């Protein structure tokens, strides 16, 4: 549904060196999936969305969106994508319904009024349709912005930090709405720096900071990156021990630091006894056993702060 190859954007800046915001991004987003694009502020998420929605030009590389090539079929792409921009401005002096109808007309929606009504009702804004948007709360504005992004029934929806700056209640409502959209066949490209949000909403997550660091399902990511780690303090570490532990079927990864053995595995409660047995059989003297706890945040931060991680 979205396919990019070495997509790159370099910003030329006056009096400063050029800034590479997105470098050699190659991803494949499948039809109907919620694809999380996770990265810290300034990672280049908005820049990526803008390139894919044909708002700014890539410096190099290619992108196909809904089968259309960015730079060639921009008009067709614009018709098939909806975008919730990072700061979704509305015409504050105009009513909610009028705001939507402008966009319905610009997208050439057949029955604009019916479509406007459908989304105003769906998002619980129908009663307020005649009110000026300037009077709306942040949460209501965000819902209206979502309605605007969906008004032409796009096959692909880009959401740029949909819950940033919302109070928890409004954020929860918006997340619930996105969750409802899931499984309606729409492809959703969700930019966020909120791990929890990505975890809960996305089928797959790309961790991104200027370059693509990793992409996988949340479960696999957790297993690979956020997996639990147990540390075995040994009196001495004999050669071959690491390999022996690595050979156990439930161990994802093992490594040694000094005379500590770090083992990553999914279910320590079940398998620690097996590891201990194996270590004792190999003649190791175990002094302490403990779990190294990383929060999701820690692992993610470690990932985005080490450029070499892939």
């Amino acid at each position, binding site marked *: 549904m979205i396919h990019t190859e070495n997509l790159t954007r370099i910003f030329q800046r006056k009096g400063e060196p050029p800034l590479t915001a997105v470098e050699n991004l190659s991803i494949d987003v499948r039809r109907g999936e919620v694809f999380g694009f996770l990265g810290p502020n300034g990672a280049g998420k908005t820049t990526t969305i*803008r390139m894919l*929605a*044909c*708002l*700014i*030009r890539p410096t190099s590389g290619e992108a196909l969106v809904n089968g259309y090539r960015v730079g060639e079929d921009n*008009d067709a792409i*614009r*018709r098939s*994508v909806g*975008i919730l*921009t990072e*700061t*979704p*401005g*509305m*015409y*504050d*002096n*105009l009513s909610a319904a*009028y705001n939507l109808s*402008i*966009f319905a*007309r*610009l*997208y*050439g929606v057949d029955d604009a009024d019916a479509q406007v009504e459908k989304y105003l009702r769906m998002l619980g804004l129908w009663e307020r349709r005649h009110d000026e948007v300037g009077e709306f709360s942040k949460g209501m504005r965000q819902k209206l*912005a979502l309605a*605007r*992004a969906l008004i032409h029934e796009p096959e692909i929806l880009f959401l740029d930090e949909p819950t940033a700056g919302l109070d928890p209640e409004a954020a929860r409502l918006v997340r619930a709405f996105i969750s409802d959209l899931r499984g309606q066949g729409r492809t959703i490209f969700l930019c966020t720096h909120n791990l929890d949000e990505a975890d809960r909403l996305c089928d797959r997550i790309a961790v991104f900071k200027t370059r693509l660091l990793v992409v996988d399902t949340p479960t696999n990511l957790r297993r690979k990156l956020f997996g639990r780690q147990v540390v075995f303090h040994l009196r001495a570490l004999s050669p071959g021990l690491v390999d022996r532990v690595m050979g156990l079927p439930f161990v994802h990864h093992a490594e040694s630091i000094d005379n500590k053995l770090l083992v990553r595995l999914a279910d320590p409660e079940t398998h620690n006894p097996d590891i201990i047995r194996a270590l004792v059989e190999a003649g190791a003297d175990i002094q302490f056993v403990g779990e190294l706890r990383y929060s999701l945040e820690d692992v993610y931060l470690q990932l985005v702060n080490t450029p070499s991680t892939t």
Partner: protein
Amino acid sequence: MPSPIAVKTIIRKEWAELYKNTLVLGTVVFLPLFLAALPLLILWASGDIMGGTAEAVGSELPPQMGDLCRGLSSGECGQLLIVSQFTLFFMMIPLFIPATIAPYSIVGEKTQRSLEPLLATPISTVELLLGKNLAAVIPAVLATWFAYAFFAIGARLLVASPQVFSRLFGPDDLLQVLVIGPLLAVFSVDLAIMISSRSNDARVAQQISSLVVLPIVFLFIGQLAGILVFNTLLTYILLLAAFFIDIILTYLSVHVFDRETILTRWS
């Protein structure tokens, strides 16, 4: 080809916003009325004064002005000379109104951060620029013509004689108001859009853009001071100048403002 639906949608949106902006709306409505009423007031006041004292008026005239009055009584001539100066007002209106409307339309997109969603739609930049242009040019031209019609009706009732009336609304005057006026409105809106692109404050952009009326003000003063006469030649020079400047500015704005430039400059 620009799609009429897209252009119309932009124009209607701009007008809906304009309608909510009392300051700008007030300018669009009252400035033309004021500028039309002023010469009428002078006409009305001059009705009594211009009785007969002939030579007093005629002798001070520069020779070019004398030509205008051929065949008129001195009273008629005086009235014609005074009031015909004010046709220039009807070229100030189409300059001033777009300079009032356009800055709000551009800076408004910036401060409301509404541009990116707009540019994400299939609208072309030409359609967007055309919509914003027309949204300012149409009210300017209509207000000018309306004010001019108001002035014409009032003048018909107040002038000393039909001869004065027909000379007051000669071919030059009609050319100025009906053709040069709209051309000036396009010039003004193009300029205002360029100025507003570089500003984040609608009022400041508006003030700078309004300086566009200065040349006409200078012409007006020059004419009052007797330094120049706004004759047929000058009318045609202005017509050609406005026409070519419009073409150049329109060409420039279509080529300068691609999507990405609009997104970064206007937001």
